[in-house]
């Protein structure tokens, strides 16, 4: 396995075509390039606004993706609407690509919900906080696709695949590895997209492994691919190829997008304790958005007017997030009771009356 990551777009914005398994990647049309750039810009704006909201006390916590926009937008845009996506808790950029209302991403971190959107309506599952757990759900969903007969038919309106996100740290969880076992043995239509941002909170990747993430797949007998995670075009191409292969019935792929999260693990984390600012600077120089912007400019795909319009859209999004966040309703006090089971069991109904009386008495007192 080559450990040199696939790269199409250099940090300075120059493009080099590359023959992937599914033929040469690119050229990408100017509209597509602009759209990808816009996705990344908007994703970053979601992130920036959320961090600000956290600082203002509107959110309890926010896991920033700063620097991972290319990986998320590349992978997110590679999936078709019929593909099913399983995120971790950091896939705000993928959520954007799946048309999930960005305001609804905030509820989990504001404490108004543990979910926030309908997992069925955008084929974008709920965030999963337990590291690795979602990889097995993704496997099960892929088993469902096989049972639906929606794989390897050659009909693009029918074939589907699962795209599941995971972090470098999650490679050490037993469940993630079980997911690899199942996917490989049953040759399931699934793509494991690992954003190797090189850190699991304070643990550098060397705590987990001495070999690249992508190599893990070989041990299970399916292909592992390494891409420059700050290169949206490489991420898009590799994920498209892998999803095509999965939909065609050729089984799973593990993609390692080699990247870096320039913010601490979450807003609660203090990364000054465990890593140096210079590492951060080096990765800032490889910024995924700046890279594509340069390409857009140098290739003439976008002009100043375009960027000005984009900035206005960004600002509007920021405004929407700020207003939307504050307007997120508190969940009704009975919601946990009502959502535990389909029908409220008698004992729990009793506990709910206890609770309702108690809450009412509290409101009474407060008045």
């Amino acid at each position, binding site marked *: 396995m080559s450990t040199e990551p696939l790269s199409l777009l250099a940090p300075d914005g120059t493009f080099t075509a590359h023959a992937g398994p599914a033929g040469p990647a690119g050229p990408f049309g100017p509209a597509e390039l602009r759209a990808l750039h816009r996705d990344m810009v908007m994703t970053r704006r979601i992130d920036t606004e959320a961090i600000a909201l956290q600082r203002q006390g509107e959110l309890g916590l926010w896991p920033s993706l700063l620097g991972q926009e290319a990986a998320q937008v590349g992978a997110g845009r590679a999936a078709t609407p019929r593909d099913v996506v399983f995120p971790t808790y950091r896939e705000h950029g993928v959520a954007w690509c799946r048309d999930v209302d960005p305001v609804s991403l905030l509820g989990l971190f504001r404490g108004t919900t543990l979910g926030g959107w309908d997992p069925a309506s955008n084929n974008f599952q709920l965030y999963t906080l337990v590291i690795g757990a979602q990889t*097995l759900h*993704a496997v099960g969903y892929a088993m469902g696709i096989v049972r639906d007969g929606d794989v390897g038919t050659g009909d693009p309106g029918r074939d589907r695949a699962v795209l599941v996100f995971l972090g470098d740290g999650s490679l050490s969880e037993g469940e993630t590895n079980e997911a690899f076992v199942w996917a490989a043995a049953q040759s399931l239509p699934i793509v494991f997209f690992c954003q190797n941002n090189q850190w699991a909170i304070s643990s550098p990747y060397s705590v987990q492994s001495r070999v690249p993430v992508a190599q893990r797949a070989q041990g299970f007998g399916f292909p592992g691919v390494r891409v420059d995670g700050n290169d949206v075009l490489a991420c898009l191409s590799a994920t498209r190829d892998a999803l095509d292969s999965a939909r065609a019935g050729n089984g799973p792929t593990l993609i390692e997008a080699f990247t870096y999260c320039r913010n601490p693990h979450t807003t609660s984390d203090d990364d000054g304790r465990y890593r140096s600012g210079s590492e951060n600077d080096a990765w800032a120089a490889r910024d995924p958005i700046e890279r594509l912007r340069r390409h857009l400019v140098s290739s003439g795909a976008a002009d100043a007017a375009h960027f000005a319009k984009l900035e206005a859209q960004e600002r509007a999004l920021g405004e929407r997030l700020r207003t939307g966040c504050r307007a997120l309703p508190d969940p009704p006090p009975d*919601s946990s009771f009502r959502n535990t089971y389909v029908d409220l069991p008698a004992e729990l109904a009793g506990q709910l009356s206890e609770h309702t009386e108690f809450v009412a008495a509290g409101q009474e007192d407060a008045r």
Partner: protein
Amino acid sequence: MSPTAMAHALNAGLRRAMEDDDRVVLIGEDIGRLGGVFRVTDGLQKDFGDLRVVDSPLGEAGIVGSAIGLAMAGYRPVCEIQFDGFVFPAMNQIVTQLAKYRHRAEGRASLPVVVRIPVGGGIGAIEHHSESPEAYFAHTAGLKVVCPSSPQDAYDLVRQAVRSDDPVVFLEPKRSYWRKGELDLDAVPAPVERARVLRAGDDVTVVTYGALVPVALEVARICAEEGRSAEVIDLRCLSPIDDATILDSVRRTGRLVVAHEASRTAGLGAEIAARVQDRAFYSLEAPVQRVTGYDTPYPPSRLEEDWLPGVDRVLDAVDRTFEH
């Protein structure tokens, strides 16, 4: 109606569930050609194919985790955990995912997953093959936990479990697999959540479930000889617990014995005692007695007979309730 072993009744129930709904998929270790180590799935792979009866890789997290994914994709998976002691690798998927998903999704989505587990001791087995893990599940909000004691109930409950949109942990008492009982394939089943009074009585209530139900009935028979009338309640659904049926009984009898194989501390007996002392405080003529496995790991099989609650121990407990 014909006398049928519980293992066969379960097989018939699963077969019927698979016929009724082609989105029912079974997953587990050795459930295909072997038919499961207890033969509960015997013949099902042959008849429904290996996409619907899946011989899984050897990993319990994978079994439950993939079942969750299948449920998200619209299927109704029924997992088999080979033995009670091997459910713990799946505990993360069960507790943090399966049980909580509907709540996380704000009621928008449910996970109709059944996790079948052969449970309990008394079969002379080696370590990890005689455990009673029900309290872990009963303490976990979001799960239903059921445990049949007869072939008819096994058949009915497994079909109802498959139809349930809530996740169900389905405990199959191993000692009862080969006990026979009448089975009517088309009987109207009792509601899952209802405990069942198997024998009416006035002097003392004995509550239990699974493999100890025959023990409780034998206790009631002996009590009758001694002039005491014992009411026997089969819990059936261990979570949520049907305390209404228990309270009805205890309000009449004033005495309660709860028996289970699981260790005592923080077991279901504790919960039932806690509820009954609260809700039937003035009816109780004696403290609720628990007859349970002890607070040790399950012993080597040479010691299990005395370790497990049996007729004599339950009788002793009944006696204790009359000492007050």
